[in-house]
């Protein structure tokens, strides 16, 4: 005679054992290397990377509300600026889009397996009119440096 409660408990218990055991086996095999985050195109002040690493989620929500609801589009609030400075050049010397795992956001987000849906709507490459040149003293570097000051 089956007892419904016992059956459910058995399923939950065996499911937990299975998942736990499986993950141990997998982890004992190879380790996934920590990602190499590409450097930005402009030199920046101290602390930007640390602040962003911890807070970019909340900062982005705050800034997007400022842009959408209040119309504030200056550099500090513009996703365009982030994407332009953090553009990664592909093999064809053109910036890669979020479809490529080399994209700046993806290098970290793929590793931590947190899916972002920003690029379902937003362009993931800088605007085509922007001239990108890593290392040169282009106006872009100066602009970015100025707004980050």
């Amino acid at each position, binding site marked *: 005679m089956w007892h419904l409660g016992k059956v459910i408990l058995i399923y939950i218990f065996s499911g937990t054992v299975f998942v736990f055991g499986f993950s141990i086996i997998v982890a004992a095999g190879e380790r996934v290397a920590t990602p190499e985050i590409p450097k930005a195109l402009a030199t920046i002040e101290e602390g930007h990377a640390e602040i962003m690493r911890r807070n970019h989620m909340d900062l982005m929500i705050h800034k997007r509300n400022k842009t*959408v*609801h209040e*119309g504030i589009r*200056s550099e500090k609030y513009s996703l365009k*600026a982030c994407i332009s400075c953090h553009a990664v050049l592909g093999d064809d010397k053109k910036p890669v889009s979020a479809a490529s795992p080399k994209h700046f956001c993806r290098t970290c987000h793929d590793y931590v397996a947190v899916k972002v849906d920003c690029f379902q*709507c*937003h362009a993931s490459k800088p605007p085509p009119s922007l001239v990108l040149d890593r290392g040169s003293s282009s106006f872009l570097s100066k*602009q970015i440096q100025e707004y980050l000051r």
Partner: protein
Amino acid sequence: MMNKNKEPHENTNTARRKFLAGIAGAAGLSIASGVTLFSFAEANDKTGPVSSKVRWGMLIDTLKCADGCNDCVSACFKENGIGSTGRPDTDPQWIRKIEVRNPKTERQISLPMMCQHCADPPCVDVCPTGASFKRADGIVLVDKHTCIGCRYCMMACPFQARSFVHEDLTDQKTDIPRGKGTVESCTLCVHRIDKGGTPACAEACSDTAGKAILFGDLNDPNSEITRRVEKFASTQIRADLGLDAGIRYRGI
């Protein structure tokens, strides 16, 4: 904010205008070498948020709107990166030309129809998450971050102005984010307005012979659009609903 009206009134002093244009050109040339990705006069954290001191609107003169001309539609599609998938039922259309015919008098006109940017928008009232909202300066927008795609605003809009994105989109324009599963409509080219420009449809129409679309600040007593609506009769479509649309029409 600059008002980019390009139609000269018959009594305008064109000599003064030419002088001003020359000065502006010289200034532009000298600054051009430093022209950056980010232009001037945009709303930013130093000038503060947009305010209700301004109310953006358009005056559309249907007498000047040519039957068969689609310049405003093409300009909008090009500006916002709207393409066609070959499925007209589900393709978005932020602006469209409507041909209106009076069956009793046979009089026919055509006019462009887009989001009317009402002062009291029903789409804003019905949105459960508040994604459909009215900005302080009168532009009705969809906050795609909060839109859950329930399409209730599409049911509520009396002008059928809203479209739903029925498929994955790629290669969106940088200034115009659009994505699958959210609702969108005419933004009055808010990305241009915030930098002091005019909507693409108004610009395209004023560049051609039509010159039917006039964009401006309805709260500014000196703007061209205010002077015109004070002088000439204009109506709003479905004025009976009391929504106080920002888009006014002349000749319907």
